[in-house]
């Protein structure tokens, strides 16, 4: 067993993602505590390796099957790296890539997995993860037994590492299984333009499940118009098809940081909070006084949104 920590690097275009740096910071901390190395696996063309200074090594595998993110090919390549490098811990983002790979590798690499981790710490001989479950209502402190482990970490939970210097680059020959893929990427879709850019707005009128029905969107639109702010929404509104994907705030939507974020009928699932918690002023309206949105909001009210929205619109209009 080694004392190394391995991070899987993710890229958007040629840019290493923020979550990779968050994982790398924790990898550095744990590897130092164990007296091991912090290593990063980077798949596809090795450009990007120079952005990963701060790691002890960047482990590169290139193969035509790895030029896009193909879940199966990435799993094959990552299992190969795990077998070759035998780290004590693998860190993945708890987003699409980590959701594809973490649980599968838990079985295939035979290692316990702590999903939805918000922190990891060494406690004597044990590795302890704090994970967020039940919609953020409960935190669980779990010990990962055995000589190797995997954690998928929720984005924004850890401070990112600032890359510095340069890391040793180790290139591994691609495993033969990459030649026989059952999966291929047909098309990649970038976020569609043409709609309002909610990430550029000073203020957002944001709605969630509490709005009840599509007909009630009028209330939000009327208020938004009076305030000169666009309407944004949490996931259920987008899934219901009531608003386009370009208006979605949260983990699988957009991260926003307006001067004011007015949340109506949003309970505040962790996935939503991830997308808006750094807004300068958050005012939340929800009839459930215990809704998690009130833990990140600066001001809150349990007044019914169906009374509050029209009252606000009327007062703004004067």
């Amino acid at each position: 067993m080694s004392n190394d920590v391995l991070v899987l690097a993710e890229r958007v275009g040629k840019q290493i993602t923020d979550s990779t740096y968050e994982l790398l910071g924790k990898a550095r901390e744990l590897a130092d505590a164990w007296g091991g190395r912090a290593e990063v696996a980077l798949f596809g063309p090795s450009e990007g390796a120079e952005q990963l200074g701060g790691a002890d090594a960047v482990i590169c595998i290139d193969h035509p099957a790895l030029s896009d993110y193909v879940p199966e090919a990435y799993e094959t390549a990552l299992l190969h790296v795990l077998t070759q490098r035998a780290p004590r811990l693998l860190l993945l983002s708890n987003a699409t890539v980590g959701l594809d790979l973490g649980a599968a590798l838990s079985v295939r690499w035979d290692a316990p997995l702590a999903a939805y981790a918000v922190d990891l710490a060494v406690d004597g001989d044990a590795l302890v993860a704090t994970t967020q479950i039940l919609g953020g209502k409960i935190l669980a402190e779990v010990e990962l037994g055995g000589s190797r482990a995997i954690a998928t970490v929720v984005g924004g939970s850890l401070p990112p590492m600032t890359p510095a210097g340069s890391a040793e680059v180790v290139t591994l020959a691609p495993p033969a299984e990459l030649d026989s893929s059952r999966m291929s990427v047909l098309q990649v879709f970038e976020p569609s333009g043409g709609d309002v850019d909610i990430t550029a707005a000073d203020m957002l009128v944001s709605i969630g499940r509490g709005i009840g029905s599509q007909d009630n969107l009028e209330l939000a639109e009327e208020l938004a118009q009076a305030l000169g702010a666009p309407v944004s929404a949490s996931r259920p509104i987008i899934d219901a098809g009531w608003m386009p994907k370009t208006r979605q705030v949260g983990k699988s939507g957009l991260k926003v940081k307006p001067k004011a974020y007015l949340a109506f009928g949003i309970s505040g699932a962790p996935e939503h909070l991830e997308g808006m918690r750094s807004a300068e002023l958050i005012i939340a309206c929800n009839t459930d006084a215990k809704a998690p949105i009130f833990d990140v909001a600066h001001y809150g009210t349990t007044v019914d949104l169906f009374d509050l929205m029209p009252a606000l619109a009327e007062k703004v209009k004067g």
Partner: protein
Amino acid sequence: MRIVVLMKAVPDLVEEIELTPEGNDIDREFLKFVLNEWDDQALEEALLVKEASGGEVVAVGLAGDADIDQSLYTAVAKGADSAVKVIGEATQTHERAALLAAYLRENPADLVLTGVQAPDDLDGQLAPMLAAHLGLPHVSVVVAVAVGEGAVVVRQEFAGGRSQEVSVKTPAVIGVQAARQTPRYAPISRIRQVMQSGALPEVAVAAEASGSGLRVRRMYEPEKTSHAHMLTGSADEVAEKIIELIRARGLVKG
């Protein structure tokens, strides 16, 4: 095409969650259990696939899940061709995946759909774990499934509004984030009719023992590091205070 939808009962998050006296698990005794909302999305997507391309939809749950019968009957009422309970109990995804893999080895499916995650799967998500047991390709965070020749084409979502279309050879396991439309409702009368028409068949499987390797030290409610300052009064009074707050930041004119 045989499409299996895996369904799990999870604690209703609308309810207060209590912990056991030992403090290392949630107290399930008085909890209300509901269908995992992502599994409901998976069922909807399966029914849409069936409507578009034909096939048979089988809803599968674990007999040990509290209140799973209601969800399975509802699945049939919505349009699933049948529902089955696999005998066994699982609190961890690792145990669940081993049981359901044993079922699927005996009763193979062309396509397995299930929710991308569940609120209580702290040892990992079912779809990839199950696929690893069965040696099948898998894709998670899927928002649309279309059937092609010997393959399915799925749309997989990423953060920031990016997505990609992936062709996956069948048999395959798909973790569904959202169906192409809001899950349909089944009228209560139809659910009752299904319930009266027969019991849910139970299937015994021979699964290998499988643990997660995790030990929960403790569970606790997150400490509130901060809480919103609550504005009280009538809707008019609260509206007045909110406008003052945003006006102070120069965001409302006048």
